[in-house]
Structures are given as C-alpha cells and as structure tokens.
C-alpha cells in the first residue's frame, strides 16, 4: 500500500530536500501562493473532512474557519509535543519526512493568512529540533521560505520552539503559554486559541500528523482524500502500535482499519502463548477495552475510527494502540498511568493536582499488597470525584484508565487486597 504520510517507507531519502522536490515537493505551495486564495485552501481542507490527529479529532477545516478576519496578526502553531505514552508517530514523520510537514505548515499559514508559523517540540526532541532548523534553513536558501515568495507579497517565517519536559505542554493553551515564555499551564477556555491564541492573537494550532496531510489534500483534492478511510473519519492515519506485540511500530493505514488487521496482520500478533487481555487505543489516556474469549471477535472486528471505537467502550484518541496480554494485571497497568499523570500534572487546578496524588498513594498501596477492599471503592470514588471538574483534559483523562480498569477487570484488583 502506498504511504502518504510515512513516505520515507516508499522513498527512503525523501528526507532530503533534493529528493522531496524531485517528487513534486513544494509545487503545491507554489501553486497555492500564485493561483489560489486562502479561503480556497480552507474550503478544500474543510471538504476533505480531515480531523485533528492529536487525539481530539476536531475537524481541522472547521477550526480554521473560526479565525476572525478583523484581528491581526494570525499565527499557526504545529503541536509537536507528542508526549502521550504509546504515541511515537509524529517523531517518525519529523525525522524521516520533515519537508512534507513543513510544506503542510506553510500551506496552513497561507490558508490562514499567517506570516509566522511555530513548531513547538517537546524538550526531549532537541535533536529533531536541530534537524528541523536545518531543514528550514535549506528551505530559506532555496526560496521556499522568506520574504515575497514566488514573486507574491506573501512572506513566511517558520520557527521551532523547544519545550522543557512537560506533557501538559501538549495541551494547546499550555503550549501557547510555553511559547510566550510563561509556565506551561492551560488557560481558561473560552476564549479558544482560534480567537485569543498566541500573544492574544487568533491562532491555528494543529498536530504534526494533521498538518502533514495538508499538502496532499491541496494537491489531490478533498474528493481524493475522502476516498480513503470512512465517511465520518476520512483519510489515512498513522497508528502507533506498542505493548505486548511482536512488531511494535508505526503503521500507516486508512481510518476504519480493524483492530484485528492492525494487531495481527500488520503487528504480527502477540508473543507465543499470549492472549490479548486489554487494549488501550488512545495511549495512557484510554478507557481500557476488555478482551475476553466472548468479546474477542467483536473487539477485533471493530473499525478503528473516531466513531466506532465508542461501541466497545473507548475512544480512538491519537490511535496509540497499546496491547496488553494476559501476563499482566490491570493494577500494574494503572499504577503506571497514575504515576505518569501525577508526575505530569501541572498543579494549577485542585482536582488533578490533589486527586492524582491521592490516586497514586492508593494504587501504591495496592501494588505493595497493603491495600484493603475499601481502597478499591475509595480509588473509584476519587477518580469519579475528579472527573468533570478539572481545568483541562489531563485531569479528566487521568481517570479513564483507572475507572475502566476497576470496572472491567475487578478480579485483578480483588486478589490484591485484603477483605
């Protein structure tokens, strides 16, 4: 199958500007600047049905149409903070197919009449940042970035910005705060970044993978894009497969591909003698799907898109599919997720800050064999108490794995506590 996002798997040195240009790179950008109006690009992306690939699945074109045209300047920010455990798709795109991302950022900037684009990378991606800076420099030398491009009066500058090790900076408003030099903590919403964003100005902020789709959509059109994937979730998706799996890694597949296809056909199935026990389709922020013999087929044949995963009690999220086999207990799994969220909680709001700490203390007791049956009720109660009250999604999502594990895998916990 042809790769559209992980193009380096078909064309190994597509990461070199020379090769990228040879394969039609930046032709679309040139065509857009010289013969298309920004609104045409927005309409094309809207019609394509492209949904945000960072986890929320919000229609990208609709987000772009929220940008008001009476407040200036506009900014475009690429969210390369990729910190969700189990997610490693953006990394591969940036390392191996950087120019398609950069062309995507450039087209998005033009579409939204922004003259400055930012790529915000998590602090741990400093090598990728240096690499992207190099790529940007090459583009500037080659005349694809800079002032008055292709003889038009459109100028564009793209800058990279490095974070400093905080998962919360993947949250769009915390990301903007971080770029502004402030503590990476989410803002009160509304207002949303589309109206009050970077430096208080209208800002489009999209995930790496989302923006990497843009050159293809503009080049080949919304119709073409809709020919892949499903009706409500069109297009290709890079699935990050990890966990107890023989061939972990990134797999570019159309949305709507089943779990069975991803896990067994592409991923080579589970190690010898192991059975699937649970699936976390959205990384650590997932509700864990329980897989029994009875429910195996139903789950495996569920198409992975933004609608159908709900039928098995979870959400697609960023499609970071973590497979858990029957050699693990779920208390071990949520011990990991709770520690992760407690560590990454920004501390701004009470329920996430204090709730995650509390959950951590309880699950530590469970793991250490010092818990009683009431602790399970307590853990569920604390998770329920946090949900719906937090300032941002981190707090809410930190409870998903906990609540689902306690509900769907009670036997794992009951055996760990004394009555």
């Amino acid at each position, binding site marked *: 199958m042809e790769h559209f996002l992980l193009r380096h798997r078909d064309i190994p040195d597509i990461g070199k500007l020379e090769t990228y240009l040879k394969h039609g790179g930046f032709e679309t950008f040139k065509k857009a600047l010289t013969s298309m109006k920004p609104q045409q690009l927005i309409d094309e992306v809207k019609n394509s049905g492209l949904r945000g690939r960072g986890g929320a699945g919000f229609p990208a074109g609709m987000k772009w149409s929220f940008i008001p045209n009476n407040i200036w300047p506009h900014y475009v920010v690429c969210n390369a903070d990729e910190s969700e455990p189990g997610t490693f798709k953006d990394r591969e795109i940036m390392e191996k197919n950087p120019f398609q991302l950069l062309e995507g950022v450039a087209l998005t900037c033009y579409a939204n009449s922004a003259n400055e684009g930012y790529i915000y990378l998590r602090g741990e991606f400093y090598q990728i940042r240096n690499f992207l800076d190099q790529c940007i420099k090459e583009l500037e030398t080659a005349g694809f970035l800079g002032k008055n491009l292709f003889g038009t009066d459109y100028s564009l500058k793209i800058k990279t910005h490095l974070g400093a090790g905080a998962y919360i900076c993947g949250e769009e408003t915390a990301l903007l705060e971080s770029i502004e030099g402030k*503590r990476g903590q989410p803002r009160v919403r509304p207002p949303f970044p589309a109206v009050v964003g970077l430096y208080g100005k209208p800002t489009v902020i999209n995930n790496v993978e989302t923006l990497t789709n843009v050159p293809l959509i503009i080049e080949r059109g919304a119709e073409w894009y809709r020919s892949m994937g499903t009706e409500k979730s069109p297009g290709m998706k890079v699935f990050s497969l990890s966990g107890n799996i023989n061939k972990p890694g990134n797999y570019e597949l159309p949305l709507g591909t089943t779990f069975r296809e991803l896990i067994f056909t592409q991923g080579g199935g589970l190690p010898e003698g192991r059975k699937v026990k649970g699936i976390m389709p959205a990384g650590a922020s997932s509700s864990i799907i329980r897989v029994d013999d009875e429910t195996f087929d139903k789950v495996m044949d569920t198409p992975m898109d933004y609608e159908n995963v709900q039928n098995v009690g979870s959400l697609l999220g960023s499609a970071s599919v973590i497979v858990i086999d029957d050699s693990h207990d779920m208390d071990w799994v949520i011990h990991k997720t709770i520690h992760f969220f*407690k*560590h990454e909680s920004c*501390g701004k709001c*009470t329920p996430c800050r204090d709730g995650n700490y509390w959950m951590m203390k309880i699950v530590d007791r469970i793991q250490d064999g010092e818990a009683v049956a009431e602790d399970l009720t307590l853990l569920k109660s604390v998770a329920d108490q946090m949900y*719906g009250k937090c300032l941002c999604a981190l707090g809410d999502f930190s409870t998903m794995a906990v609540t689902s594990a306690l509900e769907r895998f009670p036997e794992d916990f009951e055996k760990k506590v004394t009555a």
Partner: protein
Amino acid sequence: MAKMINLTIDDKTLSVPEGTLIVDAAKTVGVEIPVFCYHPKMEPAGMCRQCLVEIGRPMIDRATGKPVLEGDGTPKVQFMPKLETACTNLVSEGMVVKTENKRVKDGQREILEFLLTNHPLDCPICDKGGECSLQDLTLEDGPALSRFHFDDKQRQEKNVALGELIFIDRERCIQCGRCIRFQDKIAGEPVLGFYQRGRATDVVTFSDPGFDSVFSGNTTDICPVGALTTVDFRFGARPWEMNNMPSVCDLCSVGCNISYSVRREVRSGGKIVVKRAIPRQNEQVNEIWMCDKGRFAGYQTAESKDRLSLTDEQFSFNVTKAATALKEAKQESVIIVGEKLTNEDLFTLHTLTRGLGAEIFSWSQMGGGEYTRALGLPPGSNLGDLGAGDVIIVAASDVYNEAPIYYLRLKAAASRGATLVVAAARATKLDQFASFVVRYAYGDEVETIKGLEKKDKIGKLISEAKNTVVFFGSDGLGFEGTTELAAACAGYVRSKAGKANNGLVGIWQNGNAQGVWEQGIKPLVNLEKTVKDKVVYIVGANPATDLVNMAVLKGAKFVIAQSVLENETTQIADVVFASQAHTEREGTMVNAERRLQHAFAAVPALSGTKPDCDIAVEIGKACGIKMDVPSVANVLKRLAETEKAFVNISLAAVDKVEEQWPPVGKGEEYYSGTVQENKNGLGAKLAHVSGFISAGLTPAKSGERDEILKAVPVTQLYDHSPEVAVNPNLNDRVGILKIGMNRPTAEKYQVADADTVQLQLAGKSVEATVKIDESITGNVVTYPRNYAGSVSKPTAVELLARLQKASAESMN
C-alpha cells in the same frame, strides 16, 4: 450606560451590567458562591475549582438561529453536562445558575476534600484560625471525616521566610495563586512565582532580598489560608480575641483607612495593645490595600520605652510654668507644629496663637500647600475613576517611596488608559507604567514642568485632556524648590479648578500636612530668625535632631516641647509635656486629596499623657484665653463656621458610610480577604474655594547652575524616622546609609559602587556607602531623608575620602 443582562440564580431573578461574572452577580443578591483563587480585584484564574456551579443557557436552534421554546412558550434551557466555574463565566441573557442543588454541593464538597487531603491539621496553632476561608467553608459544607491516610500527607517546609517580613508555611498553601497574581498585576512587582509543578508546586520569591515589595503585607490579607503570615503578628493572637479599632494611617499623605486589631493580654501586663494593623476598605482612598510601612511601623510607638509621662502634679506645674512664659511674652511667642498633629490639635493651637497675638508655623520641608489648598481635588474626585482621555502628571516624586498607595492607584489609572507623565531626575518604579518618562537634571524641575505643554505629544494630550491631575513631590527638593514646583504645576489645573477629578495633589511627607495648610499654617522658613529671643512652643516636631537647629533653639528665650517620645528637642526644653500616641487618641486629618478622615483611638492611653489639643486647651486657659472644647465634633463645627473649605464638614458627614464594591467582611472573608469592612466613615471632601491664592514668593532663579557637587534630599520609605525605628523587624529594609550617584560623578570622584566614603556637608562629616544609579541626572548625590546628616534641601557636599573599597559583602 452598560447593557443590562437578566438571569436567574437559584430562585432569584436579577439584572446586572453586561460583563459581570456569575460569582459577582450572585454576591449582589446575597448568594454566596465559595471561592479561593478568585478575588474581586483581580482577573479570574479558574484554578481552584471551588466555585463550581451548574449553568444553563437558553438553547438556540443551530439551523434557524432562533430560541428553542418549551411547550408553555418559555425558553428551553440547556444545562451543561459538567459543572462550570462561576468565576470565569460571564452572565448571559436568560442564564439559569444553580448553586444549591445536590450536584453542586457535592461537587464543591469534593473540591474541599481534595484541598484538605494535603492540608495540615494546623488549626490549633495557625494564625488564620477564626478568619480562615478553608476552615469556614469546611465547617459550612465540607466533609466531616477524612478518607485520606494521615501518613500519606505530603510533608513540606513550615517556616520559610520569603522575605524577613512575610513567612510561608508550604503545607498550608493551597496553590491558589492569589499572592502571585496580586504582586504581578496589582503591585506590578512580580517577586513571587510558582516553582515546580503538580503536587510539588511551591510559592517562591525571585527577588534578593526576598519578597522585595512594599506591598507584601497585602498578600497575608488575601491568602485564604494561614500559609502567608507576617513576622509581627504570627502566633500573636486569635481573631476572636481582638477588636478592630478604626483608624487612619498618619505616616504619609495618602491617609489609608486602617484598623488596628487590639486585645487585652497578660503578656503586656494586662494592657490593651495593638497586635496588628490591617486595611479598612475605602475605595476612594486606599481601596483595600495598605503599604508595609503603615502595616508594620508606627503603632509600636505607644509602647516605646522613650515615652514621656507626667504625673498630675507635674502637669499642673508645667502648665503654670508654660503659661507664665507665654503670657509674659505674648506676641514674642511662636508656636511650631508638626504635620502629623490632628486638625483638632491644630485648631486649638491656632486659637492659642491668636489669643497670644503670636505666630504659628509648621515644621516642614515642603512648600506649595497654598496651591493645593486652592486647587486641590474637589468633592466628587476619585483617582479610581481616571482612565482613557485623562492626563496625570507626576512631578519630582518617587511615588513608590513617598506614597506607595498612590503608586498603585496611578499605575491602575494608566492601565485603564490614562496618560501618565512621570517627570523626575532619576528612574523610579512608576516609570515602567508611565506613558511618558521625562528626565531632567536636578535643579531643572520648574523649567521642565513648564515646558511639558510645549512638547509635541505630551502637549497635545494635555491640551485635549478630559481631566488633569498633577502630583508634585519632593525628590531632590526642599521648601523653596517644592513651592516653586507647586506653582509651576498649578498652571496645568488652574483653568479646571473646582471640576471633579481635576486638581493639584501635594505628596506630603506627613499624614496631616494638607490639614496644616488648610488652617492657614505655613512652614517655618528661617528657624533662627523665628525663635531668637522668643518663647517657643513646639508641638509634635523635633527640630533639634540637627545640631545647628539645636544650637539655634538654645538661643530662644524659653522652650516648651510637647511630644510622644523623648527626643533631642524635649531634652533641651525648659518645659516638657507628654502627648498621646496616634493609636491612643481620636482625631481627624486631611489627606493629600483634601479628604477629611476620622481616626479613632485604638488603645487606652499611657497614664500621664494627654492628647495634644487637651494640653493646649489647659495652657490656653491658664493664659486667660477662651478655648473651645477640643472634641472632634466641636472642632469640626467650629471649622465649618470659620473656614470656607470646611463648610460642608461635620461629624455626621465625615462618619457617613456607604455600600462599597467589592463587599468586604459581612460574615465571610473568602471573597476579598481579611480586610475590614468600613463601618465608621469614609471621610468627607473639603469644599473647593474659588480664588487663586498668590504665593507672594520671589520667582526662582532659573538657568543658573553651578558645578558644585550637591547632596539632594530624596525619600526612602524605610528610614531612621522614629516611626520606623520602633519596629526592629524593619531594620534590614532600612539598611545602611546609601547615597546615589551616576557613573560620571563616581568616576569624577574616583569612587565605585559599594565603596564607603566620607562626606562633608553643612559643616558635618558623615560616612556613607555609594550606590551607582545610572539614571540620576545632574552633578548630585541623592541623600535619603531621616538619616544622620540628612539635608532638607540641595546642599553643597564634598566627597572627602574613600574609606573602604567595596567588598563582596559590603553592601547590606
């Protein structure tokens, strides 16, 4: 007129201006929504999540854009699936808010439970107990039992000095961010911040010295728990043991309304003493703030070991002795008054003066009051109303040090769009909020101010100003300089005299300087000429700090000194009288905005002391002069009869209270902190009296400047004045004597930053430490007032020798 929005909160329908937050709207109809991080004076943060409520909004059909209706025709209201914070949501038409149903109450209780998990069980030893938001809300509606393992509670530092004045207990902190946001947005000095994240978040200070702000004390008022406490008050007393006595601070001319919290205690020998000073709300003066000097300094004077006290026999004896001298001298007597005396003291002393046919002067380093008397801010003026279209000029004043609350008010006015022009000979903290900073060399004050209207941008803004307010201070100036400056400043407000929010404000150095001028008392210009061979009665002033003045006073015929504390003047006096301290007596004062305010006694007076006015009445009677009863009510009545500016003044007018916003106190402190409700009077403005009063001074010699190095007096908030000296906790802030100079001056005299030098000025030799300040303009050294060797006006100085080169530790 703002658009009004109609909404329902619980069972109440209300109408509030567009742009109101739900939490504030609820307050107006008596619905109390609990908050921690929200404060009515600051932008909401939505952090603590305590104010969760259920919000419903009228449904609009997406397709038609029309409201969706119920069967009976009423709008269908859609409630959000999640609870929302009342502090971040604005009211909208037809909104329905529920604050009392089970879902909301459970939600709020759950947030309290989260906050309590890591909160220590400190109530028995915590200062805030009894006036604590967390305690009150938990008792009202919180969980009764803890489900959290005690051993799981996070242990943190409990006794951290953020700066030497403010301590933080990290276990108690609920990370609401009020202190950080106050320092950043209201004080404009972001010296606090969060450090680390998640459960490890701590409040830290970024400045050195720590928590370097003169507004730091306000954070202890707004901290909802006992995390921030002041060094003076911590472990001092329980709120319910104290009474809050209303007073007005007399340490500068803003006249902050304050409360002294007092209690009777064994530790003080059964006396009633002041335990702390906290702000009292007066939105037209200090809002709900006060500066650290007022909070920490001054009130300890009443307990100083240097108090004067006379037995009844001594008092009678001294009255006779004093009266005899005065009766004999008659018009060869002179009365010198301090600017902290109350209007009642001044009125009485003025009566005595007239009865003797003598002269009365104030002991002051500032002139220009005849201009503020004629052109001061008329009734209806409020600095809080100034904004876009208004022009504020600040001339020769380091407002942050001379009147800190004015710095807050002017900074806020600038943020509302007022044009703030700061003209000074050196950089001050207000510069960063100014629209224009005009720098001149010391000595060029008058030309610079006069020249403002000729400048391009500033001149245009001045000519188009809706309202104009001019402040003048005494940075680098003495009596003559400030008088000339005031005259120059007056030019900008003369045409708008009598119009509200237009006028001249003198940033005086004492609490009732304006009151002194209002009663027609002017500063003494030449001490020697005035007192030579005269009988001198000095009340509330200490001229003899200066050795020259001391010698001059010794040349007087007879000296009567009246003071709270023993000092140089009382020591050389022939007769001494013991005054009551500010906290021991009642009185009224007029602030720089011409507002007359009523201060009440906080503690019983030391035995053997009397209010200054009472002493004057006795002396007057002994001189055979008819003296009015010196009560506040009577004196205000008499002033209303005799002085045009006091025509609307009466006890009733001064003690009148009004509803203020935000509502303060009233049975809860979680909304705006432990600031006191003002139940005793907002004060009353003196009337505008038309008719410009000519100063009758010789015009300034302009343009002449010599190359002699001069020491110019500047104001430092914390100095060696007696009010600050009584609180040793402020010693580090006072610091060693530092003289400021720019680099060219330093190079000329071959000294470097932090060097110790020997100076010769006015016949005296003084040691001081050099502080390089690049912004100082002119061949001067700035010399803070109220230190040894301080000058009262620009004075020639010689840098004799460098005694000690700077070492790494020599500064402070």
